């Protein structure tokens, strides 16, 4: 069977590698039951490339207007050693101005983000999940950009900086760590998280700062964007807590109150608010622990499975059919929410819609949404649910009640629609 690493390498074949980031970890929490996604993410497979091979190219991207706006807003907040940011921290955390006025500003990214050299590097305009243009993607090969520090080097830099800052923690300084790279253990593999945010040490406690360019209008923000920001921030807080514990400090040195910096009303003036992410943190931690260990997922897969059959068979293009078969051998748990969170969603949807259990077409009930599944009491094949409703098949043990409801519902529908005709 080989080691976990070699099996994951085999699965990947020559497909480009990608790694977890805060958004994919947050998304794992959204659909933890999906083995397909778990395996893909653990193997670091570039799902965008895979989706194209499968004939379901990802249809979303990121608007250049949003990228420009995101850059400009973030740069503005961070300008002059974080001058605006310090004022916002004072306002949001309710600490005296003197407590945030002084302190080091450490750039840990290894390079200053320049849109020309690395498009989308630090952008997070709004919080729409747009996996197609993930700004936190690591370059496929660090070697391609020799000036850029390797990930492990950056983690070491972050560790050192964090150690120094926590050691020297004083109540009257506010150290800002820009672009820290945080390691996080996800399903047995190491993910690297790069907050577009920062870690700020204020009054001896570390706060994660998230800069989002969506607007807070009359004190309220879009709940979807806010929830997404909170989920991502929770992943950073978790990683930062782990790192602090690893360095010998208490986990509670990292605050669970995240400072969210947004644009105010219709202006580009920043405003800050505290976001309590304890709930999201607990959910993320629980899901990560529960997330089946990758070895268990791999054990169920056929030996020699690869998502890159071209490489495996060494006979030219193996065609999308072979790739489809390989991907299809890993069970998925498609729900409509996947469409905004996973690059493979359109493939999984067409697969779920085409799924037939010997009761005619329709596919899986889950394709219609999660709400309808509750009504059908565990029957997940559309054709079978309709056969039960039409009395065309006998209910299995335990299905008698739901079958009766469906038959009555079908009779009522028929009665009403025939009368309306």
């Amino acid at each position, binding site marked *: 069977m080989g080691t976990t690493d070699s099996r994951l390498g085999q699965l990947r074949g020559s497909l480009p590698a990608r790694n977890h980031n805060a958004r994919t970890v947050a998304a794992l929490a959204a659909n933890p039951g999906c083995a397909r996604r778990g395996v893909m993410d653990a193997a670091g497979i570039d799902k965008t490339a895979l989706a194209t091979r499968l004939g379901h190219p990802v249809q979303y991207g990121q608007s250049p*207007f949003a990228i420009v*706006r995101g850059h400009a807003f973030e740069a503005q907040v961070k300008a002059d050693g974080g001058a605006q940011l310090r004022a916002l921290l004072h306002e949001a955390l309710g600490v005296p101005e003197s407590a945030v006025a002084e302190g080091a500003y450490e750039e840990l990214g290894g390079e200053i983000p320049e849109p020309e050299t690395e498009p989308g590097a630090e952008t997070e305009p709004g919080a729409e999940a747009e996996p197609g243009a993930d700004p936190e993607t690591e370059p496929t090969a660090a070697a391609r950009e020799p000036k850029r520090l390797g990930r492990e080097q950056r983690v070491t830099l972050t560790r050192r900086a964090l150690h120094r800052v926590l050691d020297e923690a004083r109540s009257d300084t506010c150290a800002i760590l820009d672009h820290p790279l945080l390691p996080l253990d996800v399903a047995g593999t190491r993910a690297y998280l790069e907050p577009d945010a920062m870690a700020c040490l204020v009054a001896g406690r570390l706060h994660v700062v998230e800069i989002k360019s969506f607007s807070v*209008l009359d004190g309220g923000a879009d709940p979807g964007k806010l929830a997404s920001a909170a989920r991502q921030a929770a992943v950073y807080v978790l990683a930062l807590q782990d790192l602090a514990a690893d360095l010998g400090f208490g986990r509670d040195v990292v605050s669970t109150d995240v400072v969210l910096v947004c644009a105010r009303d219709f202006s580009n003036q920043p405003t800050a608010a505290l976001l309590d992410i304890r709930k999201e943190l607990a959910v993320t931690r629980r899901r990560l622990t529960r997330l089946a260990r990758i070895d268990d997922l791999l054990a169920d897969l056929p030996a020699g499975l690869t998502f890159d059959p071209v490489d495996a068979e060494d006979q030219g293009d193996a065609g999308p059919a072979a790739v489809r078969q390989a991907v299809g051998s890993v069970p998925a748990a498609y729900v409509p929410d996947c*469409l905004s969170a996973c690059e493979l969603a359109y493939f999984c949807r067409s697969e779920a819609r085409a799924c037939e259990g010997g009761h005619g077409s329709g596919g899986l009930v889950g394709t219609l949404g999660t*709400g309808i599944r509750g009504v*059908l009491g565990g029957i997940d094949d559309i054709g079978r649910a309709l056969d039960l409703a039409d009395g065309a098949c006998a209910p299995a043990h335990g299905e008698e009640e739901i079958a009766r409801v469906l038959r009555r519902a079908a009779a009522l*529908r028929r009665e*009403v629609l025939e009368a309306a005709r």
Partner: protein
Amino acid sequence: MSAVAALGRLRAAATGYAQPAATVRHRHLSDRPVVFVPYAMSGEAFAPLAALVGDDPAAPHLLIVPQPRDRDRRFGHVADLAAVLLPYLTEWLAKTETIERKNDDPYERAVDAPQIVVPSPAGIEYVRLLGRSTRFRRTDGEYAVDPDVPLLGRWCTYLAERARTPGSSLLLAMTDLLARTWATGQSDLENGELAALLGWIDPDPGRTGAETAREAEGAAPAGPATDPKFDERLAPMIAAYDHAQRADDPRAGARAEERIRDALGGELMPTWHRMWRGLELLRELPVGASVAGRWEIDRMSYSLFSADLAKPDSRPQPRTPGAVAAAQQLVRRETAQARLEAEQLRDDPLLMAEARLAGQAFRGDIVAVEADRMVTEPGKKQARPRPLLVLRTSDEPLMTLDTELECVERPKAKAKLVAVAESAQGGTLDVRLELTGGMGRGKTPEEGSVPETGELLTWTTAAPGFRGGPKWPEPEETPWTHGGPPDPDGGRPEGAAEDDDDPGAEEPWS
């Protein structure tokens, strides 16, 4: 969701064609609605990019903003929009009727009202933001805007607020209307995009709805959010426009603007056609019996708002309503919701089927009537007519005894549940009802007020009454639990004029 509705969606998924989710249209449709399809620039809080607007399917107005980050162009766009919308929004005030009111002066109610249809709920949110970003604008001083701009802002604020009242039809979202009427074989999330939703309902010739919907997923979005791929095409055009402006080259500027206009028009036109096609399909349905009554309330609301707007001391709606106003609004919406649910249920047998499945209603033939039964109720001196009915149904009512009931076919009749027993005929139930109202005031029931044997009737639990809410304190008497009276020195008493954010902070990008 009910199993009745769920079956519609399952059947749609299995057949590839949309199925009925309603048998009547539950919203008023104007004979001459205005369709409004706006696009906003991505990443900005509110920056109009383009709009198709108008009441003539063959001749939309295409309004564009070649540089949405330019403040002057932005408000210029709103002024252009106002030139189209304000005449339409106010022309209905010319024909009114005088309506008497209890405990209040009579008022003039417009006999018809405007109606604006946008593609999706995001379009309604766009209207709200349009209102919020313009209604406080000054018409004099350094950052003066056209007087029509804040006026349209107040109208938009009104319309977007009104759209939150359940059942109102002044501002409607097409995807809501369609999804309320047809069940598709895709999720609510996917139904949110007009092209795919309409694909299920109105397939291309020779294709199933499912196929048409899948192909439509690559289509230009109905907005206000744009397709990022389209933005990539648009960005260099806007850059060319900016370049021409900087170089002070009006000819190049006009050329660039024309290219932007063509691109946006091409992107928006398919949605424009889908909007009118959707209206056409919805008009084919019979209208619900209670729709006219709800439209009357819309007409009242519209007339009262217009009258308030015309007053010299009228002020823009506040950013956030005060405690008393918010509580009133909440009660109004809750009442409207309860009324809407009760009315739709009675208008639409398919919705009633859900209630019947849930045991909240039943339908069947009257098999026995004891018409001359008289009962002296406790505490009363006189015996009153209380006819007994026996109704045979295959439904399974789940109601406690003495539940008060109303009848769909005989809206005046009132009854209460007396007993439910298995009938002589297998698989059905005999429901005994006592008729308690709708028979007139006499000693014997009015002619024809008692149902007869053989009548097919539907009974459902009585809807709650729609009486006025509790008495509200004046804003000056807001209790401390709700923040206390508004502070007159705080500068923001309820409904008062407010200065907007420092306008200097408004224009970072130009």
